[in-house]
């Protein structure tokens, strides 16, 4: 009986210690790597880990949760479109706001929602709001890039899709808020995120949310 009690106490303490270690030290590092691109990222991971560790140290003084999220933004966009033309944050400047849809070639719902995105992209364009799309698993992998090309062809997508440039400052895996795919961001003409990240497949309700958030942030009155 006594032995048992000791075992429980020791076990409990170990567990508490483990939980604390994982939550206080580990979570930031681990959260950065998105599941899908992992295998291709092996090589870059160490490098990134180091970068992130540096960042972490800088951030340590103000350890609030906005910190990791704010380390990612669209103002440092470095990418190419699917024809190979370079794209930077200048792409945002022609429009009052840009809706950015993050997807992946392995994500079924993301692909299923493309026709809907296509239809709302025209609707938004009339109000000077652009819609673009960025797959999160193609920057370092030519094979998945080809898959992505095929998918947008199959789905007859005409809005712009971007391929983030590998090893640039623009690293989608740093997004902390994205819980799953697809997810949608809105940025202003400078590329600053406005409103909340919208998780999941878009529908008419979420289209309404997008409009609300744009109107709220820009003081505009799009319908």
């Amino acid at each position, binding site marked *: 009986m006594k032995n048992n009690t000791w075992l429980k106490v020791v076990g409990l303490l170990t567990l508490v210690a483990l939980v604390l270690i994982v939550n206080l030290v580990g979570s930031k590092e*681990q959260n950065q790597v998105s599941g899908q691109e992992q295998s291709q990222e092996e090589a870059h991971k160490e490098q990134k880990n180091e970068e992130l560790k540096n960042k972490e140290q800088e951030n340590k003084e103000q350890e609030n949760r906005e910190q990791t999220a704010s380390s990612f933004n669209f103002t440092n966009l470095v990418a190419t479109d699917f024809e190979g033309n370079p794209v930077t944050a200048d792409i945002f400047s022609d429009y009052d706001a840009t809706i950015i849809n993050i997807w992946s070639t392995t994500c079924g719902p993301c692909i299923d929602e493309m026709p809907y995105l296509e239809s709302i992209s025209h609707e938004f364009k009339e109000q000077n709001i652009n819609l673009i799309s960025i797959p999160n698993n193609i920057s370092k992998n030519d094979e998945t890039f080809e898959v992505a090309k095929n998918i947008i062809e199959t789905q007859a997508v005409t809005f712009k899709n971007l391929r983030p440039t590998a090893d640039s400052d623009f690293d989608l895996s740093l997004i902390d808020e994205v*819980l*799953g795919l697809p997810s949608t961001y809105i940025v202003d003409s400078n590329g600053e995120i406005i409103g*909340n990240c919208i998780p999941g497949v878009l529908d008419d309700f979420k289209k309404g949310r997008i409009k609300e958030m744009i109107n709220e942030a820009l003081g505009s009155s799009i319908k």
Partner: protein
Amino acid sequence: MDNKNNTRVWIQAFTTVLTNIHIGNFFKKTIYKGKLKQICVPGLNCYSCPGATGSCPIGAFQSVVSSSRFNFSYYIVGMMILFGVILGRFICGFLCPFGWFQELIHKIPSKKYTTHKFAYLKKLKYIILVVFVIILPTVIVNVVGIGKPFFCQYICPAGVLEGAIPLALADAEIRLSLGGLFLLKLSILIAVVTLSIYFYRPFCKWFCPLGAFYALFNKISIYQYTLDHSKCTNCGMCKSVCKMDVDITKNINDKECIRCGDCKHHCPQNAIKTSSIFINQTKVGGIKNEE
């Protein structure tokens, strides 16, 4: 006796915390997406639980069979077989967070009912495994050949409990977008919780595809129960205390046995023992002869 059963509760609590170690994520609108998510935990524990340490075997299996690149998920199935071969349904009894959840709900004071007369429902879990986990995600695909995780999407109450509810609480946009699908699955969760008050582990008995999978391994798993026939007096105590409706004297490797140990601890003759197939070979053989 009590002491031993206590140990099981401790193990259940430990594994539940270990399986959901990123507790901080509950407050952060995020889920852990690191390396360990490539590995499955043994029990039914939603990948999308903010705290989840690893993937759910059932979820991972569906996501791999439904992807257009792989038709069969060897490494997930390999991992599940490994768990099954070592422990069988011991996993259900000791390591599954959702199993423990149902047990905790069952502690709510009320009249408790036996599930003997619903024995035919036990087969349902195999149908769910074959149809919703294996066939539908593989067969029903979209234009580019990607299927849906049907079990996760339309049935799994653990997903609502661990994924949808905590994430909706944490994130306003998720909360706003909850719709019909959430209502469907919330109803399933409420049904399971309600049933759990009156019946012991209803989801494990009738619906769980993971339990169904491990059930197939009870007979051959390394972790085994043995019955000493020379000690057994056929008093029937083991059968009467078994909440999984198993008569262990008839079949020591019953597919429904979750190795909780109630029979072992209640046996007045100490005739039921745990062992592994490596030791006690003779006894296991002896039982087979009896059969």
